[in-house]
């Protein structure tokens, strides 16, 4: 909870006093590595804020191949808006790639926060716009960028994930094959190695 509190106080206008009033809306949960947090077709009423560990949103195609939509390491939010805001089934799976501690964020928390702290609305909007901006970049990357450009963008966004997850998983996020990722890394090493 402390991690989330520090995050909110650093990034949003929520004060210590306001946080104490909102605390009752929040719940901390831990997921051992490998836990399926949300299943495609299921429903959820919460966003997850990751305090420690790593969550991943992904789908499986008809051939059983994984496609990773998003990673959520420390201080990232992850959730399925389809389920939370439109009461439809979740369109992807979320699982824990490491032992993970999260804070569960309900719609109620977000609404209460805006009542108690009117400036929180602006912050919440900014979060939403940031999310949309990120999605726009990602669509453009997947349509137009080379494998190397996608990888270079990935290491800016998630610098330490190269040390925490497999090449196969990185490739599944970049929309390229693991062989293609190996070629990219080999080419970069050729250009940059000491």
């Amino acid at each position, binding site marked *: 909870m402390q991690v989330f509190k520090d995050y909110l106080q650093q990034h949003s206008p929520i004060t210590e006093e306001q946080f104490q009033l909102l605390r009752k809306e929040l719940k901390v949960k831990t997921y051992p590595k490998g836990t399926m947090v949300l299943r495609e077709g299921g429903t959820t009423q919460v966003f997850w804020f990751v305090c420690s560990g790593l969550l991943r949103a992904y789908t499986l195609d008809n051939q059983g191949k994984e496609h990773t939509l998003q990673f959520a390491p420390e201080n990232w939010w992850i959730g399925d808006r389809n389920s939370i805001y439109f009461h439809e089934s979740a369109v992807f799976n979320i699982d824990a790639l490491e032992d993970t501690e999260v804070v569960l964020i309900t719609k109620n928390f977000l609404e209460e926060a805006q009542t108690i702290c009117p400036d929180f609305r602006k912050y919440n909007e900014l979060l939403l716009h940031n999310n949309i901006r990120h999605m726009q970049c990602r669509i453009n990357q997947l349509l137009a960028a080379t494998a190397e450009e996608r990888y270079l963008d990935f*290491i800016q966004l998630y*610098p330490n994930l*190269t*040390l925490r997850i497999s090449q196969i998983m990185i490739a599944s996020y970049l929309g390229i094959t693991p062989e293609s990722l190996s070629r990219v*890394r*080999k080419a970069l*090493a050729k250009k*940059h*190695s*000491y």
Partner: protein
Amino acid sequence: MNKLIENIVARPAQPGMVGDGFRVFNYIPRGGVNQRRISPFLMLDFNPTFDFGPSDHLRGVDVHPHKGFETVTIAYKGSVAHYDSSGNSGVIHPGDVQWMTAGRGILHKEFHEENFSKTGGPFEMVQLWVNLPKKDKEVAPHYQALTADDIGQAALANKGGIVRVIAGSTHGVSGPAKTYTPINLFDIRLNPAGVFQTSINAQHHTALLVISGNITVNDQSAAEHSFVLFQNEGEDITIKANEESIVLLLSGEPIEEPIVSYGPFVMNTEAEIREAIMDFNLGKFGYLE
């Protein structure tokens, strides 16, 4: 004056797996033995004798980076093959020590050697990480492949056993390892009732691990697989074997600099760690399949 003992720690309850080839108990960093307290040593993992059984699949650890320190692999039983991004490769056999200076950054991988893997058999290794001082963290990566024959040894009095000197010196023998800061690393093999005596600078952080057997050290008993941490007072160490025993004695002059570590990178500041991660991501450490 006898070196005073700070504490004797029993083997941790549970081993952990490093990749699928090393079943290790972690002694450093652990509890009160943090990286500052035992500087220049950063990590000590011990895989006590274990038979993984015959396997066509080569067990081990796949490609991973290191930067800012040295890894020292001491083979007691079994053989490990290693490969790195500078094109080096080799096999570490029982009695050999591989001293790898990761320096400015290297990628490597290590697996049970193919023939050993096929037959299976007892496997026993220590891996020790040794910090580099700030001024040497950017040296080009290199190896010292110290074979059993390179490692000088001295016979102990009364047929008490031998001491193999990997680094530093004792009993008139100097170890072959070239180190960036003063370090002693002794592989002591004692017969029952054998005695090993030495003196180590009181300033050095000093510890020993009972690889096998059972010993009395400066009048305190230390069981198999226990770890003895000495205080920085006194110089003299006397080890008596209560049965046939193998002891790894390590000491080093502390490096009085901040330690910031993240996984396989050990630097002096958070900014250097971020830079190390990006250097790795951009391929500056080279490439290894």
